[in-house]
């Protein structure tokens, strides 16, 4: 689709996009049908859950090895390669003079005209700030609206509003990011009624990205709300709690983990997002991923890798920090429980 755009045949791109959307709609129809067939099971009631660790016995060593292997292949190996690459002038040469910190904190790197190491690179620092604010705000918007969608769907089961929200919140998932970006670009490029032209603003990127990640947040919100069900809130109503008090004291604390998941996952994806921002980013709203693409185009592999590592670092630090502050845990947030 990107190619069709590039060679100037938007018609072909539109057809490709339509077909993808059609397949997606069919999948959603199947999903809706299944959801209708199954009754709702409340797996976390007011009774809470207990953890039941059990000993692996003879499988302890193999299980440990397997997990080490998985972590090694999927994380340590690729990350290690990139780290080493960002620290060397020439890939694959392991001599002491080949190692350098120039790509991280050097000034005027040789053979890279006008480029500083990424910690001293104004473009990179600016892009990092953009990435952070775009992904951050988009994740906040997506996460909170996702939980709200879940709240409404559970609150008004079997109503049109619930069905409508369920499906509409899932729609952005069907549209290929690039097509979605193209649509938003043409829609917001000019002033429309009260909406000013948004092209070239961070706001446009935040808006589009929060829409794109709404499906994930909404799914996580619906699942989490369904697990808890309506009763904790009804019990609070019985106790005389106003809506605000219920949300503040009951719904949000119980859904803390789900809310965290609904914010952190879009944030991580947003930091890594490429196909969406490639169309929408303009000078001034460049983000880290578009910088990486530019570096790769210029052949600045080490700078690209260093930038990539910076993204990983930011994600790790922020996610870890958030978990520490809220006392939640992203991985167990998927299950929605303690």
């Amino acid at each position, binding site marked *: 689709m990107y190619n069709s755009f590039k060679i100037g045949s938007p018609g072909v791109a539109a057809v490709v996009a339509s077909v993808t959307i059609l397949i997606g709609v069919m999948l959603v129809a199947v999903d809706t049908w299944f959801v209708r067939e199954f009754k709702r099971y409340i797996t976390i009631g007011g009774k809470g859950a207990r953890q039941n660790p059990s000993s692996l016995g003879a499988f302890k060593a193999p299980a440990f090895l397997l997990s080490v292997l998985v972590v090694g292949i999927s994380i340590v190996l690729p990350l290690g390669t990139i780290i080493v690459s960002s620290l060397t002038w020439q890939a694959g040469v392991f001599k002491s003079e080949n190692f350098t910190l120039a790509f991280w904190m050097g000034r005027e790197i040789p053979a890279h005209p006008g480029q500083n190491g990424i910690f001293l690179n104004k473009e990179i620092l600016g892009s990092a700030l953009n990435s952070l604010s775009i992904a951050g705000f988009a994740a906040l918007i997506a996460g909170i609206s996702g939980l709200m969608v879940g709240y409404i769907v559970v609150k008004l089961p079997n109503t049109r509003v619930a069905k409508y929200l369920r499906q509409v919140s899932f729609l952005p998932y069907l549209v290929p990011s690039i097509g979605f970006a193209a649509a938003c670009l043409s829609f917001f490029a000019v002033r429309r009624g009260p909406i000013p032209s948004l092209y070239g603003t961070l706001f446009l990127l935040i808006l589009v990205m929060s829409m794109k990640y709404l499906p994930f947040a909404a799914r996580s919100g619906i699942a989490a709300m369904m697990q808890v069900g309506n009763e904790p809130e009804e*019990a609070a109503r019985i106790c005389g709690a106003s809506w605000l008090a219920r949300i503040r004291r009951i719904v949000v604390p119980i859904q803390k983990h789900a809310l965290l998941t609904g914010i952190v996952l879009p944030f991580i994806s947003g930091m890594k997002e490429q196909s969406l921002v490639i169309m929408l980013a303009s000078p001034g709203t460049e983000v880290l991923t578009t910088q990486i693409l530019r570096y790769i185009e210029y052949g600045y592999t080490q700078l690209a890798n260093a930038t990539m590592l910076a993204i990983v670092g930011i994600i790790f630090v922020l996610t870890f920090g958030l978990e520490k502050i809220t006392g939640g845990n992203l991985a167990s947030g998927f299950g929605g429980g303690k």
Partner: protein
Amino acid sequence: MATIELRNIDRIFQGGVKAVDNLSITIESGHFVSLLGPSGCGKTTSLRMIAGLDNPDGGEILLDGKLLYSKKSGVAVPTEKRGMGLVFQSYALWPHMTIAQNISFGLEMKGIEKKERIRRVAEVMELMHISDLEKRYPSQISGGQQQRVALARNLAVSPDVLLLDEPLSNLDAKLRLEMRAELKRLHETLKNTIIYVTHDQLEAMTMSTMIAVMSGGTLKQFAPPMEIYRKPTNLTVASFVGSPPMNFLRKTSQGGGSPWDLGILACYPALANKAEAIGVRPEDIRLAFPGSTDRPVPGREGGLVSWIRKAKVATVLPTGSEWVVDMVVEGFHFFASLRDEPCCLDDGEVDMVVDREAFHFFDGKETRCN
């Protein structure tokens, strides 16, 4: 004072299912009323409408003569302003709060100051024997304890009306018996109005001052427990209440050559043309064994003191406290429940004896006619 009045309440669910159909009932202040019926009879829906968690599609709900809900005049007092207590079947404790916090929440919402809150929480925990659980979380205590916390949470705010939705159904038999006694004692001390939803007739019979039997969204009978048991006003109540259930002879079912009433109606000339179903409780049937001396005397001035028929014993089911005897009288099956172990059943022939007053008669509209 807390009298609850339901006037012509309708509740229609999506798809046109009538969950509650023109229900009218007045629950007097201070009563312990059970809504009794099989699952799907509309009892929980009725309770939720009284609490305001669900709204009727027609009719009015009043508390002490004041409208809580009326479709016509557009009144709908929200749940949080009705000031009732409700214990959910699943207890619905808040998993993120300690037991003390769970109980204190309602007081906090009422704006009661901290010192008083602590005092009241301690008091109600003492009352429910859960003082040692104060700092624990709901997931760390047993089902029976959770049940007490759920009750304590509601009692803390001392509501005039306490609604209970099958609160004992998740407990084991022993705990259920204990909690039944405790609930009854609690009601006798607090004297508030209690509406108790259950499908368990034993719970309804043992605790209530009044029972409302519901079926298919309608009210079938509203009376004190013993009246429900002794004088069921219709066939539905008669067949639902009682364990083992009442034996029935029906005009529609034909036995092997014998008249459907087994000659019972011959002794009740006034009912002969009206009755279309005859019921007798298993515990009202006595067995007289051939050769025993205490044989009842049949026939007296044209009527009967007792009704006697020859029966063949099919099988005996001992339950521990009683013996349920399955027997056949001229092609019709009867179950009798006996306190004492039946003897001399070797040849399987016995006399089935029923006192004259023990029969229940119902007409073509399934309404009691004796």
